């Protein structure tokens, strides 16, 4: 099947796949800027994300057996030139980006038409495509400085996207500004770290850097670089104490943006963390392994409990889910912190699964918002009766978030617990249990409000038109995926396992 799929493309196209992934949305962005209205721009965005999704599959299949694709930008051979390097670790992330951006764009048309002024819609799609370009670039590049550049491209586009929520709620502007300040700090930290690394190794190519770092464990410059990179990327990924930007940004951005960002942007930042910790640095370096236990795993555990507690106190549904995202990120960090192949597998698995859950959840909230304009948990009451289809999808994804069996949430929690047990980390297992209970608490609040309470009178009158199928379809695809991949977990588990192998392969020591 894989061969049949790959045989559809000429060899020349296959060879250019990494560049096509980045170039397509970039060209699309330029094109969308000059298009007159929202709908043509949307067509461009749809086309670009379709290309991205298709080529994400191409790249995934090409790297399936542990192959590594090295693509020399402009024909300049690495390590001097900029290299795009696709391996088992970033191919799944690219797939995630491709598929979720495609689903997101399908979802976007009615949602954006509702939330963004018509005049700005084409620019909105252009910005989205720039953001996608940046995210894909970050994921595929093999060059540390190039990664910074793409990171900034995606971040700046993200600030704009978040600020677009201002038409609904002026607070989106402060949220975006905050995000900008902190994101810039994160990026600066990262680039400082990269600078230090360049100073110590004399190279910017990450693979080359890894080879040279093998002998530099005791180098203080390298250690400082490590600290800057971890903190910088941790901020981008909303690692626990550095997550403050996230809740506001998610709750005031347009619905589509939240759904898209929640399932991709932090995931990409998290990928860069894995790339740096495991691939560029090495788990075997003493300062890295110490940082695992004392920083990454510890913050992961604290984060997954503290943020879950905080989520329990929220009144705004989107804010609640945003805090839950921070908590869920704790699981992934814990997976990393365990530091074994099983741990990284669990982390990546949860990364993929969490994208499925949160994508569906935020999309469902978007549907609620377009129909009734509801945001707070209180407003959700009775939606089970008035919008059963959306509410069911929301519930499925919500249960998956808790980790109920028969959903993917259970699978990834499962792997995480096994990985923690292999390492003998009982406290981590206990923390996972506590955090799951907390998750049950906040998801329970949402579901209780949706299903058990009766709808307010006005809800029945204020109903707008029927919900567009274009919003329902991607949401249901994600919700079904949440169940499907429990019963057929092999594909995603294999993806995660491949990613872990690629991450741990690192440089030979």
């Amino acid at each position, binding site marked *: 099947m894989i061969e049949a799929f790959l045989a559809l493309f000429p060899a*020349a196209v296959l060879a*250019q796949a990494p*560049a096509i992934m980045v*170039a397509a949305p*970039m*060209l699309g*962005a*330029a*094109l969308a*800027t*000059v298009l007159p209205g929202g709908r043509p721009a949307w067509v461009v965005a749809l086309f670009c994300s379709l290309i991205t999704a298709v080529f994400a599959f191409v790249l995934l299949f090409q790297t399936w057996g542990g192959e590594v694709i090295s*693509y*020399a*930008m*402009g*024909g300049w051979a690495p390590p001097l030139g900029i290299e795009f390097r696709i391996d088992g670790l970033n191919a799944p992330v690219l797939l995630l980006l491709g598929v979720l951006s495609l689903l997101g764009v399908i979802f976007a048309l009615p949602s954006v038409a509702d939330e963004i002024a018509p005049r700005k819609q084409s620019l909105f799609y252009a910005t989205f495509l720039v953001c996608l370009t940046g995210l894909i670039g970050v994921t595929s590049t093999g060059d540390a400085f190039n990664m910074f550049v793409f990171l900034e491209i995606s971040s700046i586009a993200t600030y704009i996207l978040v600020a677009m929520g201002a038409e609904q709620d002026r607070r989106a502007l402060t949220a975006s500004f905050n995000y900008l300040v902190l994101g810039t700090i994160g990026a600066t930290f990262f680039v400082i770290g990269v600078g230090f690394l360049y100073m110590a190794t004399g190279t910017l190519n990450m693979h080359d850097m890894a080879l040279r770092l093998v002998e530099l464990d005791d180098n203080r410059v390298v250690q400082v670089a490590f600290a800057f990179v971890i903190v910088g990327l941790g901020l981008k990924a909303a690692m626990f104490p550095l997550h403050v930007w996230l809740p506001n940004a998610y709750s005031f951005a347009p619905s589509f943006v939240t759904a898209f960002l929640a399932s991709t942007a932090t995931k990409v930042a998290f990928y860069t963390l894995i790339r740096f910790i495991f691939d560029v640095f090495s788990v075997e370096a003493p300062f890295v392994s110490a940082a695992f236990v004392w920083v990454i795993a510890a913050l992961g555990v604290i984060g997954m409990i503290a943020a879950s507690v905080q989520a329990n106190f929220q009144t705004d549904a989107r804010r609640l889910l945003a805090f839950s995202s921070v908590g869920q990120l704790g699981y992934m960090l814990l997976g990393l912190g365990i530091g074994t192949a099983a741990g990284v597998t669990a982390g990546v698995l949860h990364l993929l699964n969490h994208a499925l859950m949160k994508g569906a959840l935020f999309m469902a909230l978007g549907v609620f918002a377009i129909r009734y304009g509801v945001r707070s948990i209180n407003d959700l009451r009775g939606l089970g009766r008035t919008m059963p289809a959306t509410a069911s999808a929301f519930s499925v994804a919500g249960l998956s978030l808790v980790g109920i069996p028969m959903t993917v949430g259970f699978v990834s929690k499962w792997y995480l617990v096994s990985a923690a047990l292999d390492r003998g980390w009982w406290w981590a297992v206990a923390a996972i249990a506590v955090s799951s209970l907390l998750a049950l608490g906040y998801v329970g609040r949402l579901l209780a409000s949706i299903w058990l309470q009766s709808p307010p009178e006005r809800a029945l009158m204020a109903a707008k038109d029927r919900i567009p199928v274009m919003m329902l379809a991607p949401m249901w695809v994600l919700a079904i995926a949440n169940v499907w991949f429990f019963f057929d977990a092999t594909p995603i588990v294999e993806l995660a396992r491949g990613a872990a192998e690629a991450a741990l392969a690192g440089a030979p020591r």
Partner: protein
Amino acid sequence: MNPHMVLRVVSKLLIPIIIVFGLYVHFHGDYSPGGGFQAGVLVAVGVMLYALIYGVEEARRAVPPWTVRAGAALGVLVFAGVGVASWILGGNYLEYEVLHPDTAYKAGQHLGIILVEIGVLLTVFSVILAIFYAFAGRAPDIPDEEW
């Protein structure tokens, strides 16, 4: 009698020079410090100077905002288009070598870099100007009496 006669005359002399200097920086970017980014800023400065002297409205007439938007897009298209061209000619993305058959003098490299830098120039020029317009458009112009 316009009180800014001196400024107007001087700026009318200077603006073409600034723009030409921008282009000079651009074309130098090929083999010495310089390039599309700096050139874009310089050219944009030319327009800004015009706006300072003659007013933003005048500048908007000379360089309308829609051209700015189009310029930004066009710049990116040029940049990305060079990459696509190199694909079509059988190279990697942005592999300039394939753009020109003369490899002895690296003509492809020269051509590619200049084209790409033109894209950069356009985009930077447009974006800088867009930012300027956005900020300048917020406050009313300084009235003549306060000069």
